[in-house]
């Protein structure tokens, strides 16, 4: 195997000098505990009793006998979809708009990042109020003003709207971050290419689909992978706002896993769920690479 080597003369020691410290830290602090917990998925353990080997029982239970698990899985996918639309779609739209702006870009970009800085506790508290109906929160007040009073509802208590309602703040929060990445890619699109296309009479839409987007595709793939893996691991906002409720309407795999571990003290089964989350993330990343890379070729 021919290694990917950029430096013509480098010694084995130098590789070790650079690689070993980070690898050791990573293995000791991250990989080892993760493997420990993954092995727990074959055990039944409540944290204080003796560990009992149960083979594949936890997996069988997860796939066959746990209705909440499947519900949470479905919810997680919907949650992911909403986050992705907001984060990637929103980021792309805003970044495109920004490129048309001449002054004030710095300030606006900074302002867009603000929600990411505020602590989650405060964000969750604010959004509970925004969605509230009794007393009427911002969203219901707005709907009332624009004459859509019939849509007013307790957004976080209605089993049909709660999932969307908890996904929105998470999606909105990090839009600015992804916007910044995509914006940096967009302004790097060579102006000559665009101008040539305009001379050929390309519409704004063709300009975007034929010139700009293909150019930023590598960045787009990275951003999509990031947003997807973070979306699949989303935890704190749903946990703080509804704790998975009402019923299991906003239960995600992550909140379910956390509860299984620390409420039910079923560490073995919780590990089984996290094994599933890891595989789910891997599949998602594979799919993204497959779909987006293939289009590029």
């Amino acid at each position: 195997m021919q290694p990917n080597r950029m430096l013509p003369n480098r010694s084995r020691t130098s590789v070790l000098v650079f690689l070993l410290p980070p690898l050791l830290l990573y293995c000791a602090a991250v990989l080892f505990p993760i493997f420990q917990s993954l092995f727990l998925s074959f055990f039944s353990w409540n944290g204080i009793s003796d560990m009992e080997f149960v083979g594949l029982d936890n997996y069988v239970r997860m796939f066959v006998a746990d209705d909440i698990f499947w519900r949470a899985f479905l919810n997680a996918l919907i949650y992911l979809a909403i986050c992705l639309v907001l984060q990637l779609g929103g980021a792309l739209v805003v970044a495109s708009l920004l490129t048309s702006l001449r002054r004030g870009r710095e300030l606006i970009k900074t302002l867009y990042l603000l929600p990411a800085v505020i602590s989650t506790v405060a964000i969750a508290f604010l959004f509970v109020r925004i969605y509230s109906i009794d007393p009427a929160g911002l969203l219901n007040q707005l709907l009332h003003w624009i004459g859509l009073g019939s849509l007013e509802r307790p957004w976080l208590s209605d089993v049909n709207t709660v999932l969307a309602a908890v996904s929105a703040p998470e999606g909105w929060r990090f839009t600015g971050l992804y916007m910044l990445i995509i914006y940096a890619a967009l302004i790097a699109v060579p102006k000559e290419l665009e101008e040539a296309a305009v001379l050929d009479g390309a519409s704004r839409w063709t300009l975007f689909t034929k010139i700009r987007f293909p150019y930023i595709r590598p960045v787009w793939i990275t951003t999509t992978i990031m947003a997807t893996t973070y979306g699949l691991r989303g935890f704190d906002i749903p946990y703080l706002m509804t704790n998975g409720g009402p019923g299991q309407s906003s239960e995600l795999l992550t909140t379910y896993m956390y509860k299984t571990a620390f409420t039910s003290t079923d560490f073995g089964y919780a590990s089984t769920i996290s094994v599933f989350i890891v595989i789910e993330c891997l599949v998602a990343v594979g799919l993204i690479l497959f779909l987006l890379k293939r289009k590029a070729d």
Partner: protein
Amino acid sequence: MKNAFRAAAAAAVAALALTACGGGSSTDPSNVSPTGEIKPREISWLLSRPADGAVINIMKKIADDYAKDHPGFELNLITTPDRPSYIQKLETLAAANKLPELFDTDATPFAQQLAKQGKMVDAEKLLKTLDVYDDYRPGALDYQRFDDGSLYMIPFQFELEFIWYNKALLEKAGVAVPTSLDDIPAMCTALRNAGITPIAIDGQDQWPLERYVAYQPFREAGPDFVQKLKKGEAKFADPAGQKTVTWLAELGKAKCFQEGFSAQGYSDAQNQFTSGQAAMYNIGTWELPSLATDKLNPDVRDDIDFFTLPTTEGSVTAANEFVSPSGIGMAVNAKTYDPLVSDFLKFALDKYPAEYAATGALSPTTDVETAIPANATPLYQKALDQADNLGSKQAMPWDTQLDPTTNGRLQQELVLLVQGNITPEQFTSTMDNAIAQNAPKFFK
């Protein structure tokens, strides 16, 4: 590579298993008066109480006093007021076998397992040896007991839960204080018709709604019902169970709780009541400083009163028996229990009640008189007086009784039931299934 991987895997499991089983070497939990020299050192108390609250402030002071005679002694108070975060921390420490000298826990199945493994000192023996056992209110101790009657936690509070109400709002709707639990749905309908929110409830924290599921069975079948239910010996399908299920569905139909309550927090609910928007509010005496002093909104101050849990027709428990919790209890780690811990506890438990009662709260003991704060309304005294006239039974909150998995499911399904998203039949079968599935793991 494969071998290395297998070796790593084995090591991983072994490391966990070692610590997991390493807890066996604890001392005898029933030996409450260890002999030997008192060697002052730092001891820790892992607790889940307000950082600036009475318990912590008093214990700090007591520890300082104790340190004067025992140089080198220090009490490190590690508090995590948010209960779910606290539980995560406690379980993590327990799993690593790193529990400190003292730690807080409710009488949960998890705590019972710790006790069974000999990790906690027998509190009944301890209190008796310190000669303070008889000072405690029986109710305060009973709240801390496990099903088998054993006592491993020491209470630091004593609270009574009432239903607070706004006289003016009830009058406006033309309804009277309910004499039976069964009156409440009709009462809610009348209040709703008058444009008033009947009951303000903190849905986010889940325990407040879970209180309501306990009321009917406590009146109908007494405190034993939940004891049997949690082990699967009684069912929601039984008459007492069905009574509470239908009642809750009725409460929901009558729109008793504020719309969208499931996402509203503790202060939201209280604010609705103290701002005169909601007619009733179910809360305990820990809120006396907000509800029975001049801190209460002047607009409603003269209209506020409370009633205790109504009875029902044919009720097996009396009107003076309701929810009277003594809060999260303190357990003593058997492994680190030594003459110092013993001596400090003796010192602290002796001094604590007087100090605590002086803050205007009810002491878990009967040997001290609670001081009424200067800014109290007459309601304050009225509330405290209820403590002297309690029956021998108490309604246990179900969240400390059921196994945690069933409890979590119950909290979720209750919201659905009250919101009308599921039928009483669906609720009954889901919950009975959940108990059948989970109870055997926790109550062998």
